């Protein structure tokens, strides 16, 4: 365990090296937040209710997904694809270290760093624009939301690693062509830009089967109390099952990939 903790610490040190890059990345995150936030503010100024959401609930959804973006979708493991394509994976394969755990340790470092900046930024945003924000009536919903967010983080980690593994077979542009498609799908199907329950019932049935909605949409539904209390447990069980499935698939694909790995670039 100690070696992975050291990887986390080294990743932090590395993250702080480029101050400008660091600041620009935070600025990017804030601009994205304002874009979505004011998009919905503009729509809500014309209508009290949009789809099934009143203004307070929808804006809370926007702020909540912004938090989940920092926690769930921030992932350095995108670079795993690059390491596979350019042969840097060699460095890990010759050492007594688990590649998947290595990326998990680096992701934890990155997410902690993200949150460390997200929280004070949000405090400032709250003080300046005073957005309407709902806290759950029942504290258990809040606890369930945190649990769901953490499980979603693991789900996304294994999913992202799986996408990186396809670079073994398609090393073109370090795996970015596939990665772009995945970003688009997630932007659309995870509930990042709008809640998924604005779609027709058929689409929602499909969303329930796919893993993407569990990255952001369903955890936010738990937070907002829009999932009946007796179904919260089931949602969490489905998410845990997804963690297990994605873990199994990603490790199996990684093992298969190693057999075709050319260890190029050296």
């Amino acid at each position, binding site marked *: 365990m*100690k*070696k992975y*903790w*050291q*990887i986390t610490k*080294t990743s932090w*040190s*590395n993250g702080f*090296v*480029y101050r400008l890059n660091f600041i620009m990345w935070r600025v990017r995150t804030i601009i994205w937040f304002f874009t979505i936030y004011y998009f919905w503010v503009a729509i809500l100024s014309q209508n009290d209710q949009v789809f099934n959401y009143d203004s307070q609930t929808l804006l809370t959804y926007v702020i909540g997904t912004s938090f989940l973006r920092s926690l769930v979708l921030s992932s350095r493991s995108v670079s795993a694809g690059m390491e596979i394509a350019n*042969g*840097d994976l*060699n*460095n890990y*394969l*010759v*050492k*007594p*270290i688990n590649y998947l755990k290595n990326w998990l340790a680096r992701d934890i470092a990155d997410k902690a760093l993200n949150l460390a900046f997200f929280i004070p930024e949000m405090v400032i945003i709250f003080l300046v624009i005073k957005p309407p924000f709902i806290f759950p009536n029942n504290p258990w919903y809040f606890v369930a939301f945190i649990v769901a967010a953490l499980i979603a983080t693991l789900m996304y980690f294994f999913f992202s690693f799986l996408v990186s593994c396809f670079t073994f077979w398609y090393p073109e542009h370090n795996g970015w062509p596939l990665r772009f498609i995945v970003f688009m799908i997630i932007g659309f199907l995870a509930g990042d830009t709008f809640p998924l329950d604005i779609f027709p019932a058929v689409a929602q049935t499909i969303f329930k089967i796919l893993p993407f909605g569990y990255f952001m949409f369903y955890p936010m539904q738990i937070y907002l109390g829009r999932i009946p209390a007796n179904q919260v447990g089931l949602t969490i069980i489905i998410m845990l099952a997804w963690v297990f499935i994605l873990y199994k698939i990603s490790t199996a694909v990684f093992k298969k990939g*190693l*057999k075709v*790995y*050319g*260890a190029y*670039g*050296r």
Partner: protein
Amino acid sequence: MSVIKVKNLKKYYKVHQKEPGLKGSVKSLFKREYQSVKAVNDISFSIKEGELVGFIGPNGAGKTTTLKVLSGLLYPTAGDVSVLGFTPFDRKPAFQKQFSLIMGQKNQLWWDLPALDSFILNREIYEIDKKQFKKTLDDLTKMLDLKDILKIQVRKLSLGQRMKCELVAALLHSPKVLFLDEPTIGLDVVMQQKIREFLKEYNQKYQATIILTSHYMDDVKELCDRVIIIDKGTVFFDGLLDEIIKKYADRKILEVTFSKPIEKKDFKTIRAAKIKKFDPPRVTFSVKRKSANSVAAKLLESFPVADLNILESSIEDIIREVFTGRDLS
């Protein structure tokens, strides 16, 4: 006892072939043709504990592929490979803690952090005892004269300094087996010499088994008694460096300095000697080994010779001859 055993190793790659130009690119979108490349084709050798063996061969001969198979990076297509009693591609931690792979063209150090951060990370990865780590680090930094640069960002180090740090990172866990792929590539002659001296010292001090590939014959000449020559994926020669000279050098070099002006046509009568270099008053001849003495005698007898030396062909020349199959004379 053999530490490394390789028997009938084969490694074939499937490579996608594309015709040149835009037409070829469009065609390859729909139909791809693959060709099997035999990077390593049935090689066998074994290496004893403490041996320092040079792997030489032209680019694409299969040297690096062999090292990658020995390190467990690549699955062999066929054959048996054993290093320290382990099958490398099982990638058992017990095996990984006992060997190191150093590639001159790539680094394992964190680029934006001082080398010391990468060393500490390796300490945890290899689970090295803190006291032992400090002792090994002190030893290595002293041997490589590195003390002042450990806290400087790796990206700001010179190539030579970086290579030295790479060596330290790879040796902190005191590996018993070392695979070095072009460790002196791109370095100036002084730094090459320093790295060589270090490797020699390390080999002797720790009885480490080392395989070294290099395009610089000086590396091989100074460090390795035994060489394995690989060409087109097969072992061409495996033996002592001196034996290459005996086996393949069928010519000797005569370096003659004349005391009076001479011309090329003057040597027409000595058919057994071919002029290698004509730089009056100095002329270098290449002659068959068996006729070296008679040619020397004839030169002394028929020409105003101030000085004459009979030399062996250089190892570089011999190996070049072996690879190209050309006569050097």
